[in-house]
């Protein structure tokens, strides 16, 4: 049922997933440029594939956009399943998503990512990137807030637009 619904709504999911991902990226990268955090999720993603900075940035950005689309489908599935397609529900899911990223994904990243060093073994020939630490705090004490803000916006945009699509 959910898969069928996603299949029929894929154009909306693709369009608004792109818009929400662009908005979230603007918040996250803008926070980095404004000096609020040193975290760059696209860069972290890209360095999983290559050690060349320029290539890592481009590859990471593409992977990040793709991830944004996939999560747009997942958000739709959750909201549809709960029967609440509204901005606030999108924001709630975004908040849970951000928390999961901050407290579960980022701390274990050094053990899964080929280029992130860890505090026990130190840097190596390949593992040289500073690890994010709990809630990404190694990248600045405002990192949890900027990450949360980006995901809240992402979820709110999806919740709003999915609700409008359903109503229309």
């Amino acid at each position, binding site marked *: 049922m959910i898969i069928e619904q996603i299949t029929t709504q894929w154009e909306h999911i693709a369009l608004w997933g792109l818009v929400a991902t662009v908005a979230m990226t603007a918040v996250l990268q803008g926070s980095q*440029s404004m*000096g609020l955090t*040193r975290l760059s999720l696209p860069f972290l993603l890209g360095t999983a594939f290559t050690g060349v900075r320029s290539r890592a940035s481009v590859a990471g950005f593409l992977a990040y956009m793709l991830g944004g689309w996939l999560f747009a489908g997942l958000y739709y599935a959750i909201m549809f399943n709960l029967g609440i397609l509204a901005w606030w529900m999108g924001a709630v899911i975004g908040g849970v998503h951000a928390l999961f990223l901050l407290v579960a994904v980022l701390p274990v990243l050094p053990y899964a990512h080929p280029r992130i060093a860890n*505090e026990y073994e*130190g*840097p190596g*020939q390949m593992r040289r990137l*500073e690890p994010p630490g709990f809630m990404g705090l190694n990248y600045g004490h405002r990192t949890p807030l900027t990450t949360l803000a980006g995901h809240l916006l992402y979820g709110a945009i999806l919740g709003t637009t999915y609700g409008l699509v359903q109503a229309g």
Partner: protein
Amino acid sequence: MFSALLDQQKGGRFSITAAEPAAAATRRYIGDTNVLETTYRGPAGTLRVTDFMPVLAGPGWEDTLQAQRELVRIVECTEGEFEAEVVFAPRPDFARIDARIRNRGALGWACAFSNHQLVLHTDARLALNDDADTLCGRMRLTAGDRRYFSLTYVQHDIATIPPLGEAADRRLESTLRWWEEWTRHCTYEGPYRDSVVRSLLALKLMTFQLSGAVVAAPTASLPEDIGGIRNWDYRYCWLRDAALTFSAFADLGYAAEGDAFIGWLLHATRMTLPELQVLYDVYGGVRVPEEELDHLEGYRGSRPVRIGNEACSQLQLDTYGALILAVHNYALRGGTLEAADARMLRRMGDYVCRHWRNADKGIWELRGEARHNTHSKLMCWVALDCLLSLAEEGRLRVPRQRFEAQRKALAEAIETQGFDEEKGTYTGAFDMDYVEAGLLLLSIYGFVDTLNPRMTETCYRIDRELGANGLIYRHEQGKDGLPPGEGAFVICSFWMVEHLAVMGEEAQAVERFEHLLGLANDVGLLAEEADPEDGSALGNFPQAYSHVGLIRAAVTIEEMRKRRREREAPLDER
């Protein structure tokens, strides 16, 4: 971050020194590179500290994540045993930010503030003080022992922490190779090659890699007068230095550096067209407000400590000529001028035509009343002359008649109002009777021949009135409205050497040149000024302009020698 020079107590430091006070230190750069080696010799052994900023280029480094900025320090006991002391005390923003150091386990020590972060990664055992702002340690090493320190800095980005040990040794090898390869291209062949190459290496270190900008000096507020108030911030790029800096690189075969510098000039100045600022920051930024740091005691008590530079808001007409001359030389060496560049140059020419009759603050940035400085008028003449020359070469279009008329008017003004008939010399400002060292550029920039009696007499008068022990002051003491006490200007002294060489006084030129070389510190670097009495360095250090002067003087001496040898050679050998 580290400003102990400006305040021994409050300023930060990262020092690795001999714990034994009896140890004597010597320093050298390894070959023709910017890798510094300091050797401490104590009663029981010898310690070597090798400092470098890695340059990782070529095969094997492509897939390696490099740090945004890294300083590597390798400490090795080469003989006997030796106790070394380490102090790491970062004090960001000239000790205005309290930053705490945190232990990151095997990743070293991190010091974060705002969106900046320093990471000190080391295999030496260090201890954090109670305030968590200083790391200290003593290490007793025996022959063959090595300790590594990798200090990285990052802004806006995720830090990269390079490994130590053999990996750091590989970075050293790569860096040595890169510098040796770079200096091999130097085209100067003459007796002063070591000094010329060292000057080039110093200029390269003062070049901001990301933009091509060359800073005047990497320091702020080192005094021109010990204990005095002449303490300025030189960590910016002065347009006035453009033409000579470009030629220093380009004349010695470093076209890429010269081209990058011109690229930065054309890019940075676009922001303020048609007006030019006196100085820009390395990104081309124009806001560098001056402030006094009252909490710092200053170098040997020289206060106030200033950062930023108020000169940026002055009107200095000479900047137009300096920039246009640099671009002119670049274009004649085959550089590309885009249509937008050509339009920009023409607008500058228009500006010069409209404003050259205004008074300005002149080359020495005198903070008092504006004057009709002869040097500024010279540079306006240079600007129009170069634009007309480029137009003749078909590189841009200018209103020829107007520019020619203004150039002629400028030349007449300099030859009449800027010339003292009674003394037979040019003067520092129109209708004044003093001389200043900037007049030496009249012939260097081609306005008048060095052998013209007007110029030779000016040169001798400058030497008489502004010379002291083979050095030249830029102007008479107190002319800038500040208390007397500044040192002689190193680049002006090199300009005098150039004149003496061209005037055929080779022996004297060589003697003075070698005297000036003797003013360099133990590793061949020159300050902005020197005390003529004891030769001690004054002002910011090292000074790019002084090294530009050294290069030009060495090249001129060699050219004059070559010409003399050709003249003296029998006809059949010519």
